[in-house]
């Protein structure tokens, strides 16, 4: 038993070191990207007329790649920062919070987001809880392929916990991916902003609070993500 505990301690320590390492490397890479991005902008500014359309196109592609990589690193940093030791306890009025999150997203005009019932007040780390809602809502928006997109946010109260739902009428997710999508770096469709980290971040945050996440979906018709969050 003693040995087991020691091993667990060691693993925990190594895990933390790995996290710190990911954090550090991502920050350094992010700085380099920022430099590249600035230099690229200047080359474009200075040479657009000299280099021709095709080269300008390639520079634009480079710029887009840099942006994507930056987003990617940002997500790795976010993911590595999620840990029990840094959790704060804020009192969050979810009605306000979720509206605030929706307003901060770039939602296309053809997509309607509705909060279908009164959301509760929770005690949790505000930044982490934001990541949960933000990722789920933006997924529902970004991968929606319908002419009249609809995203519905709801909640059901149970004795010890709440079950939240984020429902969309998008493309749906085939059964074989229902587990897989929570793995890091897994994406199903292509979206310029998608890095495959979002749902891993969501899952990691919920695990910290002892919450669960699952989904129900019908291909081509839409998906509902459910997650639980304890009241205490």
């Amino acid at each position, binding site marked *: 038993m003693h040995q087991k505990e020691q091993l667990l301690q060691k693993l925990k320590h190594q895990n933390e070191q790995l996290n710190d390492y990911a954090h550090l490397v991502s*920050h350094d890479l*992010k*700085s380099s*990207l*920022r*430099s590249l*991005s*600035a*230099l690229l*902008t*200047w080359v474009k500014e200075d040479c657009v007329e000299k280099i021709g359309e095709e080269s300008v196109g390639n520079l634009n592609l480079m710029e887009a790649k*840099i*942006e994507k990589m*930056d987003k990617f690193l940002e997500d790795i940093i976010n993911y590595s*920062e999620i840990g029990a030791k*840094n959790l704060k306890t804020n009192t969050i009025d979810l009605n306000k919070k979720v509206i605030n999150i929706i307003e901060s997203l770039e939602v296309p005009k053809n997509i309607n987001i509705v909060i279908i019932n009164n959301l509760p007040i929770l005690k949790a780390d505000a*930044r982490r809880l934001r990541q949960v809602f933000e990722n789920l809502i933006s997924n529902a928006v970004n991968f929606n392929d319908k002419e009249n997109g609809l995203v519905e946010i709801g909640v059901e109260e149970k004795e010890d916990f709440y079950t939240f739902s984020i429902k969309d009428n998008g493309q749906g997710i085939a059964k074989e991916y229902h587990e897989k999508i929570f793995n890091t770096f897994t994406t199903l469709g292509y979206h310029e902003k998608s890095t495959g980290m979002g749902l891993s971040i969501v899952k990691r945050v919920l695990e910290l609070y002892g919450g669960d996440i699952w989904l129900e979906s019908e291909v081509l018709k839409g998906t509902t993500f459910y997650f639980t969050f304890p009241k205490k």
Partner: protein
Amino acid sequence: MRKSLNILLVEDDMIEIMKFNRTISKLAYPHNIVEAKNGEEALDILYKNESLPDIILLDLNMPKINGLEFLSIIRKNDHFKYIPTVILTSSNDHKDVTECHQLGIAGYLVKPLKFSDYAESIKTVLDYWCFNEFVQA
């Protein structure tokens, strides 16, 4: 409103310095920039110069004396403690943000990826400080 500021830029990265200078050169008013490559060099400049900068723009991640160390030194110094200091960094690390605010800062800017966004935020910060009165030490 003043038309130009005396700025101490504490930054170790060459391209970041180029970005700053390129931004400044396109502004309507000529600001006066003094550069320091790290906290140590910045302290030297502060000690040697008779007139203090109006504002310090400070990177956090630097060799020798880093941004946080530099900040805590100047906040304890009677002569330097009123110089408004704006953090210019790549990290929105919660711990860094909190520590800087505890020590006392006049702003915390996370450098955006895009140069145009960067230039815009620098311009906004400097415009704001042009409208301010300073403690002349």
